[in-house]
C-alpha cells in the first residue's frame, strides 16, 4: 500500500502553487476584475413560479440617472437566446413566460452597481399567473400543467438523443436493466423495500456567480467567468451569438469554490447579451441570495428494493428514482444517467432494473452537485445494505464484504471493471473505528461505500512549452477551483522534465491560449489532464532527442537518458541545452503536446471508478435529537496521490460537505416560494462541527489510468455520509430514518415513534461481532 518513494516531485506534499497569492489577498477572482469603461448589470427576478409576461415597461427605469439601457426577453430576437449543453431549453432572460420564482426577467445596465440596483424597482411587469407544478407527483399527474410545452433542440452533448422533449414534464428518462429481476425477486430469500428522500441542496460556493463580458467592436467576445468548464461555456456562447470559436474567448481566473454548481453555462450568455446591447464591457455579480435562485441539486425520491438469497448473496435490485429537476434541464439529464448507473454500488448484482426520471417543476433549476447523482442514491443504497444485514442476521460489514466486487470484477455490463480495492478500503475504515474501543451508550458506528463511474467524457488536450533557459510552462484548460490542480499538474511536469518545481509555471484556463479540455469536474483533472501533461512532456522530450541525434550525429539508441538530460559518451546534454544548440538562439522554446480521446487505455469507460469509503462514529443527544460526530474516517482509494496532503484535504472537504447534507442542509419550499434562500437560514457545517477524531487514509495501489497509476478523488467521501449517519443512528437507537437531513427535530420524532427496542436484541451491527467493542455493546 505504501509507496517506496521512487519519485522526485510527485507523491510529495509540496506546498500549493497558489499559496502566497491566496494568503496575501492578491489572488485574483472574477469578482476582482474591473475593465475600462465597464458598466454593471443587475437583474429583476420573477415573483411568480409560473406566469405569462404580458408586458414590460422599462421606460422609467431607462430615465434613471446612470442607467444605460435595460435588456429584456423581447430584445433577444437577433440572437439565439436559448442555451443548454444537454437541451437548449434555457432562455438567458425569460421570453414570454416565467417558470420559477427568481427567474431573471430583465437586466438593468448602469454606470454603477448601485444605480442598476435602484433602477430595478422602476420596471413595471404585467404578469398573468398560470398554475404552477411544484412537486414531482403533481407534475407527473395526467393533465398536469406543462412547464415547457414546446420543443427544443439538443445542445453540445451527444447522447441525449432520447430527450423526451418539452411536450411532457419528463426532462430525461434513463432505464438500466440486466438479468431477470422479476424472477429473482420471486425466488429471493429476503427482500427489503423502502422509500427514501434526499433533499434539495445549495452548494454554497462562497464566491457567488460572476461574469465580466466584453463584446467589442471587432466582434470579439471576451468573457471572464467563475465557470468550471470554460470550453463548454465558449461553445454555448458561440451558438447564442452565432460566432466562430475563434471569436469567443473565455478566461477563468481563480474560482471561489464550485462543487459542481459552477459547471456548464450559467450567467455568461446573459452578461454577454448585456455587453452586446450597450457595446461596453459589463459585469454581472450575483449575490449569494441570487445564487440560491440560480442552481441547486436535484432532490431525489428513491423507491428501492433489494433481495438476497439464502446464503446472504445479493441477487436483485430494483429502483425508481424521481429527480426534481426544476425549471430547466441544465445538467440534470446527466445527473439522471449517473444516478441510474451509480445506484448499483460497488456490488455484484446478477439482476438489476433501474428507472430514473428527471422531472421539470416550477422551482429553481437543478444541476450538478458534487458527486453527480451519487449522494442522492448512496443514501438509500447503503441504508438498505444495513437493513438487509440486520434482516438476515449478519454483521453489516461482513454482509458488504461478502457482496463487494473485487478489483478486476465487473459490476456493470459493458463498463470498465472495478479498478480499486473496495473490500480493503472498507476493512481499513472499520479498523480505524474499532480503535475507539467499546461503543459507549448513545454512540453508533457505520462504514459505507459508493462507486461512481467518474471522469466524464475523455477529451483532454494539453501542451507544455520547454524553454531554452530550463524553465517550463504548462498550458492547461483545467480550472483551478481550489482542488489544487495547478499544483498537481506542475508537479507532474517537474517530474517528467527532471527539473525543480520552482522552474515550472502554469498558464491557466483561457480558451484563446490553452487547448481544449472538456470540463473540470467528475474528479477527472488529475487522471486526464495529469496524464495529458505527462504525455506532452514526454513528447517534448522525444523532440529533444531527435534534435540531439542531429546535433551529435548519433542515433538515439546510443543515448543514455538521465533525469532531465541525455548522455552520449562523455557528453551530457540537458533538454534546454539541446534546444538552445539546435536553434542557435537564446530565449527559444519548443512545444510538446498531447491529445487524449476515448481510445487506447481510455477506450473503456468510465475512465476510473471513484470509490467513496467513509466511517463515522456519532454521539446522540436523546433529549434533543442532536447528532454530533465523534469520529470521521475517510479512505481515498486514489491509485497514487500526486500530492498526499491535498488529496487528504479533498477527502475531508467532501466528507464535511456530506455532513452538511446529512445533518443540516435542505432547501425548503412553501408553495411557490423558496423559504430559506439566504445564509442566515441555510445552515452549513462550521468549525464547531469538527469531529473529535479525524483519520484521513490513502490507499495507493497505482491501479488507475492516470499518471503513475493515479485516479481521481474529491467527490467520493461525500456520497456515503448520509447513510453512515442513518445507520449509526439505527445502531445507537434502533430508529431508522429514511429522509435527510437528520435534523434534531426529525431524529427526535423518530425516537418518539420507534417501536423496535434498542438494538441489543438486533443482530450485531457495525462494530464487529468479535470485537470487545461489540461485545460490550451487546
Amino acid at each position, binding site marked *: 500500500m505504501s509507496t517506496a518513494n521512487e519519485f522526485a516531485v510527485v507523491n510529495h506534499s509540496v506546498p500549493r502553487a497558489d499559496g502566497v497569492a491566496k*494568503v496575501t*489577498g492578491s489572488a485574483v477572482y472574477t469578482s476582482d476584475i474591473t475593465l475600462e469603461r465597464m458598466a454593471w448589470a443587475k437583474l429583476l427576478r420573477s415573483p411568480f413560479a409560473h406566469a405569462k409576461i404580458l408586458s414590460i415597461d422599462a421606460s422609467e427605469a431607462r430615465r434613471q440617472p446612470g442607467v444605460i439601457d435595460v435588456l429584456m426577453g423581447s430584445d433577444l430576437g437577433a440572437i439565439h437566446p436559448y442555451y443548454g449543453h444537454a437541451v437548449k431549453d434555457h432562455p438567458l432572460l425569460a421570453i414570454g413566460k416565467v417558470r420559477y420564482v427568481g427567474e431573471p426577467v430583465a437586466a438593468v445596465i448602469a454606470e454603477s452597481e448601485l444605480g442598476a440596483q435602484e433602477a430595478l424597482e422602476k420596471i413595471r411587469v404585467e404578469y398573468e399567473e398560470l398554475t404552477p407544478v411544484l412537486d414531482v407527483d403533481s407534475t407527473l399527474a395526467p393533465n398536469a400543467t406543462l412547464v415547457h410545452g414546446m420543443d427544443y433542440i439538443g445542445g453540445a452533448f451527444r447522447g441525449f438523443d432520447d430527450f423526451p422533449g418539452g411536450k411532457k414534464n419528463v426532462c430525461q428518462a434513463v432505464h438500466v436493466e440486466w438479468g431477470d429481476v422479476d424472477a429473482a425477486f420471486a425466488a429471493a430469500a429476503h427482500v427489503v423495500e423502502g422509500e427514501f428522500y434526499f433533499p434539495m441542496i445549495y452548494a454554497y460556493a*462562497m464566491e457567488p456567480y460572476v461574469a465580466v463580458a466584453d463584446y467589442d467592436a471587432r466582434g470579439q467576445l471576451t468573457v471572464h467567468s467563475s465557470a468550471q468548464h470554460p470550453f463548454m461555456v465558449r461553445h454555448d456562447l458561440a451558438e447564442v451569438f452565432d460566432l466562430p470559436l475563434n471569436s469567443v474567448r473565455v478566461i477563468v481566473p481563480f474560482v471561489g469554490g464550485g462543487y459542481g454548481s459552477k459547471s456548464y453555462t450559467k450567467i455568461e450568455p446573459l452578461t454577454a447579451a448585456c455587453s452586446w446591447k450597450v457595446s461596453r464591457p459589463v459585469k454581472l455579480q450575483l449575490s449569494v441570495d441570487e445564487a440560491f435562485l440560480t442552481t441547486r441539486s436535484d432532490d431525489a425520491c428513491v423507491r428501492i428494493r433489494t433481495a438476497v438469497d439464502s446464503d446472504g448473496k445479493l441477487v436483485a435490485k430494483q429502483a425508481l428514482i424521481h429527480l426534481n429537476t426544476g425549471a430547466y434541464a441544465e445538467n440534470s439529464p446527466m445527473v439522471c444517467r449517473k444516478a441510474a448507473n451509480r445506484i448499483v454500488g460497488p456490488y455484484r448484482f446478477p439482476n438489476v432494473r433501474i428507472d430514473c426520471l428527471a422531472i421539470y417543476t416550477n422551482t429553481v433549476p437543478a444541476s450538478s452537485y458534487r458527486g453527480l447523482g451519487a449522494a442522492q442514491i448512496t443514501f438509500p443504497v447503503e441504508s438498505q445494505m444495513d437493513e438487509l444485514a440486520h434482516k438476515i442476521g449478519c454483521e453489516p460489514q461482513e454482509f458488504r464484504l461478502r457482496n463487494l466486487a473485487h478489483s478486476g470484477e465487473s459490476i456493470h455490463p459493458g463498463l470498465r471493471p472495478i479498478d480499486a480495492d473496495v473490500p480493503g478500503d472498507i476493512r481499513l475504515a472499520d479498523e480505524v473505528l474499532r480503535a475507539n474501543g467499546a461503543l459507549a451508550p448513545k454512540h453508533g458506528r457505520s462504514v459505507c461505500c459508493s462507486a461512481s463511474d467518474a471522469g466524464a467524457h475523455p477529451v483532454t488536450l494539453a501542451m507544455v512549452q520547454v524553454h531554452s533557459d530550463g524553465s517550463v510552462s504548462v498550458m492547461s484548460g483545467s480550472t483551478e477551483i481550489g482542488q489544487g490542480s495547478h499544483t498537481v499538474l506542475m508537479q507532474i511536469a517537474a517530474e517528467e522534465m527532471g527539473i525543480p518545481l520552482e522552474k515550472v509555471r502554469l498558464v491557466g484556463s483561457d480558451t484563446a491560449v490553452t487547448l481544449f479540455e472538456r470540463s473540470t469536474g467528475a474528479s477527472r483533472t488529475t487522471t486526464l489532464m495529469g496524464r495529458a501533461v505527462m504525455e506532452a512532456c514526454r513528447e517534448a522530450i522525444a523532440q529533444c532527442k531527435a534534435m540531439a541525434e542531429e546535433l551529435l550525429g548519433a542515433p538515439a539508441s546510443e543515448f543514455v537518458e538521465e533525469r532531465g538530460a541525455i548522455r552520449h559518451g562523455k557528453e551530457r546534454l540537458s533538454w534546454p541545452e539541446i534546444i538552445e544548440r539546435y536553434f542557435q538562439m537564446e530565449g527559444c522554446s519548443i512545444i510538446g503536446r498531447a491529445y487524449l480521446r476515448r481510445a487506447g487505455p481510455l477506450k473503456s469507460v468510465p475512465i476510473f471508478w471513484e470509490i467513496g469509503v467513509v466511517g463515522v462514529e456519532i454521539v446522540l443527544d436523546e433529549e434533543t435529537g442532536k447528532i454530533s460526530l465523534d469520529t470521521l474516517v475517510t479512505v481515498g482509494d486514489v491509485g497514487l496521490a500526486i500530492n498526499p496532503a491535498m488529496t487528504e484535504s479533498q477527502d475531508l472537504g467532501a466528507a*464535511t460537505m456530506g455532513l452538511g447534507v446529512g445533518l443540516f442542509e435542505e432547501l425548503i419550499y412553501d408553495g411557490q416560494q423558496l423559504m430559506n434562500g439566504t445564509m442566515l437560514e441555510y445552515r452549513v457545517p462550521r468549525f*464547531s462541527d469538527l469531529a473529535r477524531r479525524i483519520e484521513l487514509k490513502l490507499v495507493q495501489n497505482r491501479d488507475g489510468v492516470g499518471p503513475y497509476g493515479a485516479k481521481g478523488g474529491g467527490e467520493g467521501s461525500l456520497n456515503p455520509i448520509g447513510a453512515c449517519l442513518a445507520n449509526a443512528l439505527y445502531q445507537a437507537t434502533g430508529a431508522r430514518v429514511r429522509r435527510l437531513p437528520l435534523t434534531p427535530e426529525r431524529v427526535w420524532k423518530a425516537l418518539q415513534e420507534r417501536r423496535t427496542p434498542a438494538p441489543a436484541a438486533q443482530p450485531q451491527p457495525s462494530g464487529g461481532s468479535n470485537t470487545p467493542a461489540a461485545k460490550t455493546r451487546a
Partner: protein
Amino acid sequence: MGAQFGRLIYNGQRVKITFELNGKAAALEIEPRETLAEVLRARCGLTGVKLSCESQVCGSCTVLVEGLPVSSCTYLAYEVRDKRVTTIEGLADAKGRLHPLQQAFIDQFAFQCGFCTPGMILAGKALLDENARASEEEIIAYMSGNLCRCTGYLAILRAIQQAGAELRGEPATSGDGAKP
C-alpha cells in the same frame, strides 16, 4: 412617500473621513450608506476583502478594526473614522515577510479555493493577538463565525495552532494525522 423617506436618510451628501489603513494614513470621501467592504474593495483596491453572504454569517469579509474582527459587508465605512483598519494586504511585514499565520496556512494546506482565507487569517490573528495560548476548544469557538466550504476546517485549526506556537516562541507542532 418612499422617495421622501429615502431623501431623509440620504441626500447625496458625501462625508470626509480619515483613518489608518494597514499602517498608513488614509483620507476618503464616502457616502454615509457605503459599507466598509465596498469602500475597501472599490475605492482602495483592496480586493483581498472577499464578499460572500453579505449578512454577517460567513466571515469571508472579515477585517480588523482596532485589532478586532468585524464583518465589513455590513459595517458602515463611516464607523472607521479615526480608527485603525487592517486587511489581509496589511499583514505581511514591510520586507514582504509573511505573518506567521499566513505561513502556517501555506504549511498546513489550510485552504483550497482561498475565498474564505483572508477573513479566516484575520479572525485567527485577532484571536492570537488576544490569546496566543488559545486552546483547541477556544480556537474552535472563536473561529465558528468563519465558514469554509472546501477544507473541513481541520487544516485551519492546525494552522492557527502552528502560528500560536510560533508566536509563543515554541517549536512548531506536526500538522499531520488526527485531532488529538
